[in-house]
Structures are given as C-alpha cells and as structure tokens.
C-alpha cells in the first residue's frame, strides 16, 4: 500500500542532507549572495527611481538613493497619469484587474478541479479521450485561437467586458489546470473515495468532504499561479477588454508607451510598482506555501 507522497508530506517534510565541509559551504553562500543581489537590483532600481525627481534621474546615477524622496510620482501614477480625458491614473485599471481576476480565479479553479477530480477518482467513459485532448489543447499556441476567440466573445456579447476577459482567462487555463488537478487527485487512495461513497458521500459531497481537505498544497500552488498569471497578463486583457475592462498592465503599458515630452521614468517606475504590488504582496505572504506546495509534489508529471 503506497501512500501518496503529497499526503505523506502533510505529515512530514523530507529531511535534509547533513552539511559538509565549511569551505564549499562558504563558497556556495557567496554565490547565493551574488545572485540574490543580481535578482534584487531591478526592484531596488525601480523603488529608488520612483522616489526621485526627473532632474535627479537625468544625472544617471541609477543606484543612488534619492536625495529628496518624494511620492509625487506615485501620486501621479495612481491618480493622474494614463490615458483619457479624466486622467484617472492606474486606479481604474486596478479595479478592472480585480474584477477580471476574481471571477476567472473562481471559475478556472472550480471547473478544472472538479473535472480533474472526476477524471482521477471516477471512471468516466470519455476520460482518456478528454485527457489526450487536453494535452493537445495545452500546447496550442494562443495566437492561433486568439482571433476566433474574439469573434466568439463578440458573438456572446461579452467582448470588451471584464467578465469576457475572465471567461477567456478561464478557457486558457482549463487544459493545464485540469491536468494538474487530475495528476494530483490520482494520488489519493481509491479506498478513501470508496469509503466516502459507502458513507453516503455523493460526487460533490465526496469532493468537498474528503478530497478538498487533502488538497491544500495543490490549491495554494494553483491559486498563486492563477492570481499572478491573470494579474500580470497583458495580451488577453488588451485584446478582449476595452477601456472599461482594461487590466492594470494595459494601463501601465499605455502610460509608458504614450506619455509625451521627456519620458517620466519616475512615474513609470511608480506605476510599474503599483501594478506589481498585489501579486508581490500575495507572493510575499504565501510564497513559502507555494514553494512548499511545489516541493511536496503538487506539480508532478
């Protein structure tokens, strides 16, 4: 009887290899620090640049700390910059992003997890066929279905609405998410599902009472992937939204691509940071869980 590693990991975490000689450890540490600095540089530059005045930026000292830190650029980016008569800045895009994210997160995770569960734990007649279809779908490049999808959403009257963008995100996420969930749920012992059936758990009852409580890792991993993926999306929001439904990334690109005069890098950086804050916050809060989830095998196969 093999207990799924994922479930085992709820109980215990694999042990580490004991450390060895201090010299190579020191060398490893130095390399790690070097790369950490390299990875941190862009964020640092973004932050300090956003706090500088343009005059200071023109001096070209990108690493220097701001002489007189000011949040003016942030204010401009959030409230004033961007396109349109109202010059509403990024804040309208922020809410669009929220209204795109929430429904698509809910739809994609619920549909794909239940489908993955049906494929993994129940004997569905078309199951194998569907799995091969999904594998193919996951590899279909987005551009090939982009234009017809536009036509379909136009036909469905959801084109240029935030809900329409949510639907497209859901459609794009389903194949890969369904496969991820199927793989994960396959590791749940069949006996558990059988026991639940005898106990009177029906299809959904068993899912909610037995399967879901076993799946916090996969749920966290998928949720973080979806949240960052959808929030950071550009092309889907651009092609399926309009100004009422443009996500923040499109607003950001509008700001950085179309501002006239001297390019206001401080505002760009502030706008970029504002756009990046929600996924960064989610990541800093739950990144550990994400790492643990993947390490525990949430994304096997």
């Amino acid at each position, binding site marked *: 009887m093999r207990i799924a590693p994922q479930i085992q990991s709820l109980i215990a975490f694999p042990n*580490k290899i004991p450390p*060895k000689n201090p010299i190579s450890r020191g060398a490893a540490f130095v390399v790690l620090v070097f790369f950490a600095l390299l990875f941190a540089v862009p964020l640092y*530059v973004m932050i300090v640049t956003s706090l500088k005045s343009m005059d200071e930026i023109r001096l070209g000292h*990108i690493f220097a700390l701001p002489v007189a830190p000011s949040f003016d650029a942030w204010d401009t980016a959030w409230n004033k910059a961007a396109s349109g008569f109202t010059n509403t800045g990024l804040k309208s895009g922020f809410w669009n992003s929220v209204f795109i994210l929430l429904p698509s997160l809910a739809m994609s995770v619920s549909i794909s997890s239940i489908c993955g569960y049906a494929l993994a734990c129940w004997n569905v007649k078309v199951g194998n066929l569907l799995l091969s279809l999904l594998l193919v779908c996951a*590899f279909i490049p987005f551009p090939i279905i982009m234009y017809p999808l536009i036509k379909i959403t136009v036909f469905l009257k959801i084109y240029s609405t935030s809900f329409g963008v949510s639907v497209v995100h859901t459609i794009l996420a*389903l194949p890969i998410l369904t496969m991820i969930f199927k793989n994960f749920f396959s590791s749940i012992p069949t006996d558990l599902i059988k026991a639940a059936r005898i106990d009177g758990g029906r299809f959904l009852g068993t899912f909610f009472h037995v399967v879901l409580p076993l799946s916090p890792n996969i749920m966290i991993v998928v949720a973080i992937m979806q949240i960052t993926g959808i929030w950071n999306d550009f092309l889907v929001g651009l092609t399926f939204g309009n100004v009422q439904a443009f996500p923040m990334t499109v607003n950001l690109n509008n700001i950085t691509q179309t501002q006239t005069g001297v390019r206001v890098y401080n505002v760009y950086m502030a706008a970029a940071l504002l*756009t990046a804050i929600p996924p960064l916050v989610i990541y800093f809060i739950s990144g550990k869980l994400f790492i643990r989830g*993947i390490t525990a095998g949430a994304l096997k196969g």
Partner: protein
Amino acid sequence: MVRANLPAQSTGQQSFVHKHAATLAVVPVLLIALFFYFGSTIWSVVMSFTASKIFPDMTFVGLRQYARLFNDNLWYMSLENLALFALGSLGSLVLGFVLSVLLDNNSAGEGAFRTIYLYPMAVSLIITGLVWQWLFNPSLGLQQFFRDLGFKDFVFNWVGDKNKVMYAIILASVWQSTGFYMVLCSAGLKGIDTEVWQASRIDGISKLRMYLEVIIPMMKFTFITSFVLLSIGAVKAYDIIVAMTNGGPGGHSIMPSYYIVDMYTNRRFIALGAAGSTVLLLIVAAFFVLIGVINYALRKRES
C-alpha cells in the same frame, strides 16, 4: 490495488444528475476543448487559405498566404529569434538548477534566498520589460553608471543593438523565470531518496560526481517538464517584446507571436496572421511529438 474503477453511472432509482455527476463534471471542459480550442484552430487554419484582410472573407486562394509568409524575411527572423529565445531561456533552467543545488547544501538564510530568487515571478513581463529597458537605457541606465565609475568605453546598449537585442530580452526573461525553475528543481531534489546520498558517502563519491552522474539523470523528468514549460513560454513571448522593443531595431527582436498578433491588429491581415499561427502550430506539434517520444522512451526504459 485496482485503480479507481468506480462506476461513473448506474441506472436505477437515483436522479439523473446524481447518476451522471462525474460525466457531467467533465462535460464543460470537454466542450471548451472541442469548441474553443479545436473549433478555433480549425477556423484559423481555414482562414489561412483565404484572402481575408480586415474582415473574414471566404475567397480561397490556396497556399498564397504561406508563400507570402515564407517570402517574408521578418518571419524568418522571428523563427530564428524563437529558436534563440528558446535556447537562451534554458538559462533559467540551468541557473535555477544551480541555485537549487546550492540552496540544498546551504541552510543559512535559505528562506530569504528563495524569496529573493522567486519574487520576479510575481512581476509581470510588461514590468520586467520596462525595468530592463530602463537598465539598458544608454544615457541613464547601467551604461551611464559604469561610465561614471570611470569605464568610459563601457557599452551596454543591447536594446539598441540589432545583434544583441535578443540577448537583452532573454536576460530579462531569465531574470523573471529563474525562480520558478529553481523551485521545480528543488522539488525534484527533495524527491530523491536520502539513502542515495548516504550510499554515496559510504562509497566515497564526491558531491560533484554525484550531481553529474546520479542526480541529474534522476531528475530527467523534472528537466523535461521544465523544458516543455520553457518552450511554451518561448512560443507565447509577446508582452516582453511589446514592453522592451516592439520588435526593433529593424525587426531583430521580432518573435512569431508578435508577428502574428501584429498581423491581426496593426496590419489587419487576418489570413496572413492565420497562416503564421498555423505554421507555429505545426512547429509546436513537431516539437512536442519529439518530446513525447523522448519522454515515452525514457519512461519505458525506466519501468
């Protein structure tokens, strides 16, 4: 143990929904796969044989759009850049693996390191493009910084150099995605039985040898998964091009996705966009058949 063979449906006293719950649960995904993916793909392929420009137009012109496509230097450049980008973005896997190994051997500050390596993943490619464009800005970015330090001839204007612009894009995307591959590799490393390490210590095999000859082969499926994900990323690459270069200079940073979307939007030439995406689909199909065969062969040898 017999794997899940619970009946999906049975007949009798139960309600229809209850009986067919599992089947009903897969129907939405099945319909989406068939209708949105396969339907759309077929539509695009059909369009590629027509003369459609701004609006779909059912005048069939045979392979004319494909002839156009393959007579277009930009399309070749985009394919070259795709290959270059795919190869270059392997850098995230290599670096991710190295970092995961180092982290596996170093417990001091592990959490902090992981956090730093992974945070770019939370940042959108539009922002990644913007910040790297900024760092590459010849008069305000890194080039100026180093010149101010006294390296007067330091040149770091990759975005403006047609021979280096792809490296700039690759660098930015490696920065963005390395953390994710580091986590995948960490997962692969954790999945390796600790007894293997104990055995190697008893046999007196050096760590480096172990990684090269035992651990890397053991992690081949992690690498294949990563490779597939990286390839999908390369095929999709669009945002970062928009944010960094818009394909310039001289089309030297154009990629197939950008070429196709540009055909659909700015050039308003549906048929050529559809032809491009059909070719892209064939390339992807060929590539994944290859990966599939390798994967199958490996797994067969395994069992």
